[in-house]
């Protein structure tokens, strides 16, 4: 089995800023038939947060990423993941969008590449029990 890549907003921002990393990801995805995916709310956060100067690069990147709609069951699962992360009692406070992208990756056995608050994503991964995560900067 080969896992697809699911990307959070931070990872998309990092790829938008560095075409050498973006082409490396595209190359690997194509060679190994792994889709590049995200959750629909990430599209809003990513494009909405793009500076005017970076918008064309943002449109270029996002048009190569397949985005999945949020169903009610996925939204409920994301809520459970947040509860699990917060109930650990640490400093993790994952956002709804972080949790939705984590739930999307979990539901499809995909691997989540993020570039944000590592404590939040680690807590989401522990709450899931099966979610594979990797911080983008850990791959540089």
């Amino acid at each position, binding site marked *: 089995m080969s896992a697809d*890549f699911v990307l959070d907003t931070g990872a998309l921002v990092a790829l938008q800023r560095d*075409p050498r990393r973006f082409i490396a990801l*595209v190359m690997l995805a194509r060679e190994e038939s792994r889709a590049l995916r995200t959750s629909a709310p990430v599209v809003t956060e990513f494009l909405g947060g793009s500076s005017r100067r970076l918008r064309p690069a943002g449109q270029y990147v996002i048009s190569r990423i397949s985005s999945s709609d949020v169903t009610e069951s996925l939204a409920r699962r994301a809520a459970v993941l947040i509860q699990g992360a917060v109930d650990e009692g640490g400093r993790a406070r994952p956002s709804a969008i972080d949790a939705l992208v984590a739930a999307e990756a979990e539901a499809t056995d995909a691997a989540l590449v993020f570039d944000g608050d590592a404590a939040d994503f680690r807590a989401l991964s522990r709450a899931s029990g099966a979610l*594979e995560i990797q911080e983008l900067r850990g791959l*540089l």
Partner: protein
Amino acid sequence: MKKRVQAEAGYAKISATLEAPVLRQIRERTTNVSGFLNEAAKRKLYFDMLRATEEDLRQQGVEPDMRFYRNLKKWIHEVDARQAARMRKEQRARSG
């Protein structure tokens, strides 16, 4: 025995020759075969688009960050191995 299956989705046409047991397994795992093939056709279109993206970026003079590529590849293969091991464990637990 091999069987040939073909499907059209939009402008994309795909065809594949599959061993009968594989085809049977696909049929068992999907609610209908045409749904599966439409999905496969969409995936083929998607990877064609990624190929075009890579060519487009290379024509613009962008070279891949090979260190990032190697690290990403190593990690995703480790993920595949862990997921396969988890599936085997689940199957063993189910079968007894």
